């Protein structure tokens, strides 16, 4: 038992990989066997993720080295004090993201067991989905730059193949092509930046580079390349053009997890800005760049969302806009790091708001995409002009959609309100104009979701949708899990902030602690 508990970070990627590789063999035994196998794999992985997160929140950062004999041999004795193997460094911020990934991955696999029934080629689908899940877990947990690049490419390729899954109409392949091409370019920029850092500091380990860094010209070029590549992968505004196409054309379960994958890239952006270059870059400049990107994303996302006719494309533009909120919150926190008194009053609240918004967004956006998937599954169309009056038949779906829509608009008592209130408070003290823009964007979000709700669920019953039934049971259970969490996080936000978000925010700005956990207090 102790062996398993010690090796949990290794099992975190081994179990989904083993599950993915054995899925073609298990599917030869029938559909039911494959469904049980996939559900078992993802349930074990989510359990691993939650166990690791609880251990980290109790005892501090866990460092797991690959290929040694005992858990404590992070630094080989004859290496001169540098860790030369690949390590997984799981600190409270990674634990926070692991909880998000665990919950959402379990819900989408439960959902896709019944939403994929009518489609063929399912063993390929589940293999790719398990590979995507393994890639996202690896991105969150790793402490090594090149290992992050490898997992980033794994999740991009698996995600692009899943976006282009429905090849009977050619539009999905167009969306998948855009996603794959832009992800490849982002990955290549990231690789060039890794090359710049490796040639100066002779190490690929994040903690070692952070402790050895002196800011040279090459480092600044590498920082710009990192920032561009990771902002491209998470859908910030000048590089957001792949987001509406891919989120709309992918199967709905996949879209809910692509949101988590974009947030893992956002996590890496914060890791690079705060920990890798911690104390070296000018926090005010970089913070303002992040704030401007955030404001642009918020505004352009929501104004492009209002005239959309396709439900999932509208929700994808809202995902861009909510990413703007997270960038705004953490950007204000970064800019406030430049002066201590501003940080004590504003910075910590902004950081907590931005980080809490990541979890809330994954939950309510996943719920919204799953409800859109139910509509597509039962009615065969996503066009708002053709839908109407579905509230008579699909009562549970309507309730879940309403919960998701109120949460994204920031209405109490749902969880969107808690994180948005933290962002509004801190941003208003920092610069009032930003808070006004954020509130206007929130009102426009509410407006567009009222439009969607009215045109989909309200109104008289249409003749072609006379006999649509409610969603099948696995889909309802998956949506219910997310909806219950949305409501719970909204009613008890203080508990969640104290136990999950505050350690993450403290770990984010503590780059000395990160390096000390790996190098053994030598930084």
């Amino acid at each position, binding site marked *: 038992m102790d062996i398993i508990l010690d090796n949990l970070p290794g099992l975190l990627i081994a179990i989904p990989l083993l599950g993915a590789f054995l899925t073609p063999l298990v599917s030869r035994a029938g559909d039911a066997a494959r469904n049980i196998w996939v559900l078992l794999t993802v349930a074990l992985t989510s359990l691993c993720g939650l166990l690791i997160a609880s251990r980290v929140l109790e005892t501090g950062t866990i460092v797991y080295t690959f290929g040694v004999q005992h858990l404590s041999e992070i630094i080989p004795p004859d290496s001169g004090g540098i860790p030369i193997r690949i390590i997984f460094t799981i600190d409270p911020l990674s634990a926070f993201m692991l909880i998000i990934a665990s919950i959402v991955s379990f819900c989408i696999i439960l959902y896709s067991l019944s939403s994929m029934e009518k489609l063929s080629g399912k063993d390929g689908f589940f293999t790719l989905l398990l590979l995507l899940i393994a890639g996202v877990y690896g991105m969150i947990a790793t402490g090594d730059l*090149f290992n992050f690049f*490898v997992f980033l*490419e794994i999740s991009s*390729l698996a995600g*692009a*193949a899943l976006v*282009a899954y429905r*090849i009977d*109409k*050619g*539009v999905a*392949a*167009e*969306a*998948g*092509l855009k996603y*794959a*091409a832009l992800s*490849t*370019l982002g*990955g*290549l920029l990231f*690789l*060039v930046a*890794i*090359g710049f850092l*490796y*040639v100066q500091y002779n190490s*690929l380990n994040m903690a070692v580079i952070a402790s050895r860094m002196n800011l040279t010209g090459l480092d600044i070029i590498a920082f710009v390349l990192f920032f561009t590549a990771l902002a491209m992968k998470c859908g910030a505004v000048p590089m957001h053009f792949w987001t*509406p*196409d891919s989120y*709309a*054309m992918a199967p709905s379960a996949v879209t809910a997890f692509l949101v988590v994958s974009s947030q893992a890239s956002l996590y890496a952006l914060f890791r690079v800005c705060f920990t890798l270059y911690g104390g070296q870059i000018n926090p005010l400049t970089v913070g303002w760049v992040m704030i401007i990107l955030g404001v642009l994303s918020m505004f352009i996302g929501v104004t492009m969302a209002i*005239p*959309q006719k396709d439900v999932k494309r509208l929700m994808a533009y809202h995902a861009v806009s909510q990413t703007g909120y997270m960038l705004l919150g953490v950007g204000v926190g970064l800019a406030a790091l430049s002066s201590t008194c501003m940080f004590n009053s504003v910075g910590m609240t902004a950081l907590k708001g931005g980080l809490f918004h990541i979890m809330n967004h994954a939950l309510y956006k996943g719920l919204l995409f799953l409800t859109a998937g139910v509509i597509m599954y039962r009615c065969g169309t996503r066009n708002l002009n053709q839908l109407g009056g579905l509230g008579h038949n699909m009562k549970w779906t309507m309730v879940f959609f309403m919960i998701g829509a109120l949460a994204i608009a920031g209405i109490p008592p749902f969880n969107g309100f808690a994180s948005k209130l933290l962002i509004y408070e801190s941003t208003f003290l920092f610069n009032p104009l930003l808070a006004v823009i954020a509130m206007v964007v929130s009102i426009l979000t509410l407006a567009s979701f009222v439009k969607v709700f009215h045109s989909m669920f309200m109104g008289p019953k249409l003749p072609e949708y006379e006999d649509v039934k409610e969603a099948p049971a696995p889909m309802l259970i998956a949506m219910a899990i997310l909806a219950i969490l949305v409501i719970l996080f909204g009613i008890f936000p203080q508990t969640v902030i104290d136990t999950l978000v505050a350690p993450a925010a403290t770990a984010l700005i503590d780059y000395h602690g990160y390096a000390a956990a790996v190098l053994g207090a030598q930084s």
Partner: protein
Amino acid sequence: MIDNLPFLVVAITILLGLYTLLFRKDLIKMIMGISLIEAGVNLFLIALGYRWESIAPIFTGAPSLAMVMPTVQALTLTSIVIGVATLALLLSMVMIIYRHYHTTDVREVTKLQG
């Protein structure tokens, strides 16, 4: 000056790849542009590891002991494998697009707009 020649070649390759990606209107040629950029980045990584008067890092039957840096070669190998998988995926998607749109001109593949 001659130290920097590999990096000059890398810059020229990446610029040629970017030119192809931006100014050519056929999907297959744009994917060739992506492949050129990947080749440039791989060459950059290998050129980072070079040391003067050194040989390849193989111990089997080697003449002397000064060797170039082997870690960047491992990074390049991984990058080449990822490039192969990406190209296979991109080309398959272009084949599917050709079957449905009957053209590979990127100005015609515009069903998703707005």
